[in-house]
């Protein structure tokens, strides 16, 4: 294609044409700027329709997190809120940046609305080029585009301005408020409603939701965090209890190091037992030791915390001791019966040997049981300490968990399976377990290994009755449950033989 007409002289500008073009440019810019403002306003309102609900959601989340953090955690627990806030801020900045002046877009909108066939866009480019030093005609910079003669520029400007006057910003952007504005406002109201409600009302519901129990079912004074703090399993080498396993108000025992006084008392108890034997008493040495320690423990717990300590020991006696009265090797009713006779003095003396824990439960039981089995090594420091406090003899390493042999019969295999909602051990891979059953089995297993006597008390004290099912637990706890059930099965088989 040959370029015809190329190189022909272009007519010079006249003053009149220049003035007319300048006026047209000004009018064009005013019109397009007005449209641009209206477009930006509409864009901003449109952005608000999703930014406002997002901000309200963030506000609500922050408020709820604040409630939770105030009750049970540090301020650092609010980090999701800070992160969410930062994301929200970035989105806001992005929207704000998009609200910059965009005259070509406004011209395009005018062209569409007024059916101007790109006259406004062309005129806008023309007026911009006229503002350049080359005046849009000289072609000083070839990359900037073609050279347009002034009559063409003036004509395009004139038509564009006429179309712009005919159309106008209001016709171009007839509706400022987006259609979703009402919906957005409704969502904002819903999201802000909890914040506006009385704090106590929301706080109770939140506390109930966080505990996993319906409102009102949480035992008074229950504090899961405190349980975790006092978790006796936080010992190197001892598996740590899952938070969900600690989500029950079970009894926690803490065994402390025996002091000199404990040892002295333990020594007195031993002496008393030996002395009664030396005085010609009919009781056998081993029984007397057991009786003395047991009686001492009973005496202590009765004195210190008669309700919990005595009840617990009685329950343990009923379960573990009654069946072995004839053997006389285990503490229980036999021991307590004899304590009134030759071991009475020892009971007086040993009573201070067992030290109550903070809640006063079980310390007497530990010392009493340890006295009965003092010739076996203990498996952990805590247990050994407790045993040492009870009888005051032997190295700590030789002490054992006093509940070890008491817990095994706490649940029969059938009871355990029933608690876990299982028909067989193999079914453990298919059926959901509950927090409660897992807690119980886990505690029992730990107790069997002599590592967490405190936890074991709950399992034994529950009497093998399955508490109400709660949430499903993690699969990793199934190994513990399986081990426990298998241990029960092995014990049942041994008994059968």
């Amino acid at each position, binding site marked *: *294609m040959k370029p*015809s007409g190329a190189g022909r002289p272009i007519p010079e500008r006249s003053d*009149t044409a220049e003035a007319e073009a300048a006026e047209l440019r000004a009018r064009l810019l005013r019109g397009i700027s007005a449209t641009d403002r209206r477009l930006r306003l509409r864009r901003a309102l449109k952005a608000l329709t999703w930014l406002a609900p997002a901000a309200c959601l963030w506000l609500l989340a922050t408020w709820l997190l604040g409630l939770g953090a105030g009750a049970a955690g540090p301020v650092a627990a609010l980090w999701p809120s800070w992160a969410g806030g930062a994301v929200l801020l970035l989105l806001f900045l992005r929207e704000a940046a998009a609200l910059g002046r965009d005259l070509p877009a406004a011209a395009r909108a005018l062209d569409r609305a007024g059916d101007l066939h790109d006259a406004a*866009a062309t005129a806008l480019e023309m007026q911009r080029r006229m503002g350049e030093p080359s005046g849009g005609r000289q072609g000083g910079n070839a990359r900037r585009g073609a050279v*347009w003669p002034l*009559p063409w520029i003036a004509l*395009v400007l004139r*038509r564009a301005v006429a179309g712009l006057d005919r159309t106008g910003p209001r016709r171009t952007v007839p509706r400022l408020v987006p259609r979703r504005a009402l919906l957005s406002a409704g969502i904002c109201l819903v999201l802000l409603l909890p914040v506006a409600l009385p704090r106590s009302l929301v706080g109770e519901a939140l506390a109930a939701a966080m505990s996993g129990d319906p409102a009102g079912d949480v035992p008074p004074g229950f504090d899961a965090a405190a349980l975790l703090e006092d978790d006796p399993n936080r010992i190197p080498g001892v598996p740590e209890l899952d938070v969900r396993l600690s989500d029950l108000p079970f009894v926690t025992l803490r065994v402390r190091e025996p002091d000199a006084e404990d040892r002295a008392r333990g020594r007195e108890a031993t002496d008393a037992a030996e002395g009664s034997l030396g005085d010609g008493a009919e009781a056998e040495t081993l029984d007397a030791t057991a009786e003395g320690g047991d009686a001492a423990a009973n005496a202590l717990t009765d004195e210190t915390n008669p309700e919990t300590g005595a009840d617990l020991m009685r329950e343990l006696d009923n379960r573990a001791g009654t069946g072995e009265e004839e053997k006389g090797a285990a503490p229980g009713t036999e021991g307590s019966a004899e304590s009134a006779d030759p071991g009475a003095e020892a009971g007086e003396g040993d009573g201070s040997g067992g030290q109550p824990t903070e809640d006063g439960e079980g310390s007497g039981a530990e010392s009493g049981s340890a006295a009965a089995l003092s010739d076996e090594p203990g498996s952990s420091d805590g247990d050994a300490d407790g045993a040492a406090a009870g009888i005051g003899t032997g190295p700590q390493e030789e002490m054992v968990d006093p509940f070890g042999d008491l817990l095994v019969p706490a649940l029969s295999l059938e009871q355990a399976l029933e608690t876990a909602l299982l028909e067989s051990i193999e079914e453990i891979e298919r059926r959901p377990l509950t927090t409660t059953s897992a807690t119980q089995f886990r505690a029992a297993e730990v107790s069997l290994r002599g590592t967490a006597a405190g936890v074991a008390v709950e399992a034994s004290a529950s009497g093998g009755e399955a508490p109400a099912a709660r949430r499903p637990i993690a699969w990793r706890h199934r190994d513990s449950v399986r081990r426990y059930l298998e241990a029960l099965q092995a014990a049942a088989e041994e008994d059968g033989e």
Partner: protein
Amino acid sequence: MNDTAQPRTADDLALQLTEFADRCSRLRGEIGKVIVGQENVVDGAIIGLLADGHVLLEGIPGLGKTRLVRTLAQALHLRFNRIQFTPDLMPADIVGTHVLREDETGRRRLVFERGPIFANLLLADEINRATPKTQSALLEAMQETTVTVGGETNPLDPPFFVLATQNPLEMEGTYPLPEAQLDRFLFKLRMTYPATGDLHTILDRTTSGHTPEAEALWTAEQVLAMRRAARLAPVARPVQEYAIRLGLATRPEGDRPAEAVRRYIRIGASPRGIQAMVLGAKVHALIRGRPNVSREDIRAVALPALRHRVLLNFEGEAERVDLDDLLQDLVDSVPEG
């Protein structure tokens, strides 16, 4: 439109543009006396003429291709020649040849005898029935508007406008035009069967005693002036970007091509194809009385400007993909920006 006067003011220009549109309208009316229907083809031919390009008309025999070109020639006051392309046609039959001629003194010398290509309006009838060698004889004339024979270059008189007709390639005895030759055509227009109503009119006009004739309206100078005016029509940068996007969208190796393009197209539109779109859009805008080009003008000329520059690959040919449908999908899908 005054042949030589340049508009000095916007009012002058507006008058000239009005006259431009009126002339085109009258020409369409004059052609319409003879050619019934086919408005798009007539418009395409006029746009091709005023955009300083050449037009390829495709259609089965009997649709009035030749008659359309003859009518256009009648309405234009231009020197018109017709070449019927046949398989035995030689290049010299088109461009001319040196012949031995005796002067008054009896001396014999070689004189260049101009071929039929030396005309303002050339009808290359059934161009694809000639061999590629003969077809290529038109290349220089169409691109450079010169003819070189025996080392001597002869310019063609402006305006030079080639209107070629071809039968669909599936027909027997046809040679496909080389890509280089195809690219020389600004537009490729497809003639379709006339509607039933139009057929009545055609029969009435052609089977009665009176055969209508077109009246000559435009002179060569007027055509040249209108060509110059058309080139001055401003195209805003966003509109130009749209044309470029449209052209690039036809390339299978482009940035994220459409699935159909990637699958069926072998060669996309060349820069000359985008030039053709913009030039055609300028004339299209002026014909409608607008001084500036819009995206609608680009869209209106996109298919004629691209359909012969975009080539199907083997898979596209095998599956008989309709290139017009594919291009129309592209035109519809490319964002206006």
